[in-house]
Structure formats: C-alpha cells, structure tokens
C-alpha cells in the first residue's frame, strides 16, 4: 500500500514499515519518528538509524545484541532513545523491515 509522508509517496506494509528501502530519506525518518512518539530526531537517534541501514544493506541480521556491541549505542541508551520498543521503532524510522519471529 501507499502512504504519503513528508510530501513523498512511499510503499509501506500494513504496519507502516517501508517495503522499498531506496525510497527512504531523512525527512521521511523525521516524520515517522513524530508518528511513533519518538519526537525530533537528534544526532544520537541518527547514529542508530544510519547504523541499522548500513547493517541491513550488508544483509546482516539486526539484533539488540549487535547494536549493543556495535559501539554506536548501549542497549539502555537504545531504550532511552526509542522508548516502548527500541528495535521495532528504530527499524521503522530507518525504513527497514520489522524484526519478527517465525509466526
């Protein structure tokens, strides 16, 4: 499905995650962050978002652990930056798929 956000039309799934990573830009990220109640994105948020995008582009699995050990952010800081759901909210803002289980 389509969604218009920050003046751009993007492809998203039923939960609002981007399905085409190449449509992502920082203005879209900022708008999703507001929708998710994360508020204005700071440099600290963007460090996490950019790290997630780099890892995703490399095909690496994204986990709280890999972020916590990346040197970019600690797990505790991640919860402070993206309260309520650090991995799902940061993934949505970064324009990458939601972390899921098998069902």
């Amino acid at each position, binding site marked *: 499905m389509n969604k218009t956000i920050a003046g751009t039309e993007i492809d998203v799934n039923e939960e609002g995650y981007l399905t085409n990573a190449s449509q992502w830009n920082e203005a879209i990220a900022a708008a999703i962050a507001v929708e998710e109640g994360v508020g204005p994105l700071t440099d600290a948020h963007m460090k996490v978002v950019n790290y997630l995008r780099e890892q995703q582009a490399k095909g690496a699995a994204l986990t709280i*652990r890999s972020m916590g050990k990346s040197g970019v952010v600690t797990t505790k800081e991640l919860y402070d930056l993206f309260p309520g759901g*650090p991995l799902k909210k940061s993934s949505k803002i970064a324009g990458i798929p*939601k*972390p899921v289980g098998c*069902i």
Partner: protein
Amino acid sequence: MSKHLLILGGGTAGTMMANHLRRRLPTSEWRMTVVDRSDKHLYQPGFLFLPFGKYEESDIIRQTRDFMPRDVEFIQAEVDQITPENHAVTLKDGRELKYDLIIVATGCRTAPEETAGMLGPKWRVNVHDFYTLDGARALRDKLADFQSGRVVVHINEMPIKCPVAPLEFTFLADTFFREKGIRDKVTLTYVTPLSGAFTKPKASKKLGHLLGDKGIELVTDFVAEKVDQENNKLVCFDGREVPYDLLVTTPTNMGDEAVRRSALGDDLDFIPTQKHTLQSVEYPDVFVIGDATNLPASKAGSVAHFESETLADNVMLHIQGKPLKEEFDGHSNCFIESGNGKALLIDFNYEYEPHEGPFPFSFGPLKLLEESRLNHLGKLAFRHVYWNVLLKAWPLPGISRQKKKPAEA
C-alpha cells in the same frame, strides 16, 4: 588415495548428511567421518513434553551410531578448531583430521551466562530452562510439586532454536495446571523481546486470540537486563520488572564454541552461509547446515531436513566442479502444540509467511494454521518418522524441499 569428507556434528543435520552422502559417494573414492562430543542422539522436540511428564527419557534418547550408515567412521570427541586454510580440524584430545571437504553441523547451544544473574544460586531452583535434557528433567521435577504462583515463560533474545517452543510450552502449561486442578492458583505470563507473541500478520490475525482465551498475560518489547534472583524478578533495560515464582527462560542461543575458537562465526557464533546454496560465504570447501548457519530461516529440524536435500546435491556438484544449485528457499514446517490435545501446523519460507490451506496434498488431510486434534496426533507420530525416516534421509511423501506456493497468495 581416497578423499575425505568430514562432518562435524552428529545431530539431526549431521546424521542426515552422513546418510545422504554415503549413498552417493563411492567408498573407493571417499571415506567419511562424523565427529560429535556425545554418542547419544537426543530427540529435541521431546524436551517440550518431558517437563509435563508426557514423554519418558527412553522415548527421546538413542545411540548416535545406530543412525550412522556403515562405512562412516564415528569419532566421539570435542572439536577444538577448524582451520579451513589448512583443510584441517584439531580435536581437544590433540588429534588432527585432514579433510578435502567439510560440512559443519555443530548446531547451537543455550548460553545462560550471557544474561546477568541468570546462572545465580537459584538456577534450576526456580529459574529453569527446557532446551537441554538436564534442564527439561529439572523442570519436570519442579512442575510435579508446583502448587501455586506466578509462572513466567521468557525468551531472552532472538534467534532461538525452534522459535515457537516457548509459546507451545506456555499453552501446554495452561492445560497442565488445569488438569491438575490448580489453574486458578497460577498466573501465566509470556515475556518476549519481539512486539508480540505472533509477529506475522496472518498468524497474528488467526491466532492472536489464543493467549487471551487461555488467560495468558503478554509482555512485549522486553529485553532483559538481568535476572534479579534475590527478589525473583526479571528486569528490562527500560526499568520494567516482571516478578515470578517460577521462571522458565529460553536463554540466548549461540553457535558451538568451536566456531568461536576458529573465528568462523558472527557475534553469536553462527557461521555466515550463502542462503540458497549452504556454502560458507568465505571458504568454498566448507558447507554449513542446520542451526550452525546464520541464515534467516528457523533453527529447526524441518529446516535442516529441507537443507540436507539441497546440500547433498550441492556437495556432489561441487565435487564435479559444477555450479551449485541456488535452491534452498528457507522452507520450514512445524507442528505447534496449542494445548487441550490440539495443535497447529505451519509451513513457510524466506518469502511466504505462514498461511492457511491444505497440507501436504491439495486435499489435505492436514490443514495449515488451524487448531486440530489431527495436528496434535501428527506431532506425536512425528517422533517415529524422525527416528525411522528423517534421520535416515529417506524422502517424506508429499513434502518437497522447496515450499509449494500458497494457493491464495
């Protein structure tokens, strides 16, 4: 002189590969060896039932050698290091094994030491696990005496082996306590680092009601900072706390320690593997199968089974110097116990999420993503299929290595 195919790990994946390839590689040209630290083969799906007294240990333990073909040497030893540059594996007892081709099937293990406080003095007193034989036994004894209180079933982090097992455990616990007549004295809570018990839209829509129907409380997006054993509570990095009287945790899963000693793995000691061929990303003479890979597929026996069929073909192609099949599609298939003598069946792959429909044939007899008694009987019958058909690497009727496309997709 004949060449040497070495298989590390004599579990589900390693045993299937030994059977597949011994049939296809002439003994005059290839000798084969399987190495495992244990000489016992454990039917791991049985760990889910053991704590509830539904299976005896004799149902789930066999001798590894009994499932190895003739003309495969079985060595019981601990692997120290793999050095692909030298085509060599060293064992802890000092022996060195040279190989021409290696299949790494070393599986995964639980790593409770990864979470602060988990291995404190109350480990296996009121902090339990069921992913190991010792853990499942200790939990069986604990549940036999359990009278009342807060039972918390917990997943520490993804990925885990058999990812639905903790949820199945929760459903079975609901039935177990009800049958004991103490369900009203027990609270059941399911704690997950994911955003729900069901995270895929179709399954979530179809099955989301199960938790509420059974009075199971759900806590999501919870990454445990520590287990506070002194105060009997799980503590999340964001400060949330979940108190328990009995914690049934699924610790972090990691690859074998030999993978770390060999510097072949990622940050969880899983080996980077090409997702459609099962060849190592780094070394062409190294193949990886089952829980040991870093593939975005479930860590489960059915996945290893489907992988083994593609990998057997690819090993033959590799030996002949031909291009490998880009074939493995992440196919996974499993029965999910939902309690009350019923189960669900799911079938999915990298591309398709679990969906509804008949299985394995167009007329069924099983139905996907639906609770039924037949699926439960299927799960119980599967133990015999495992010992007699699956491990011997015989084909399963109607069940192909690649997933059939869902009819309504």
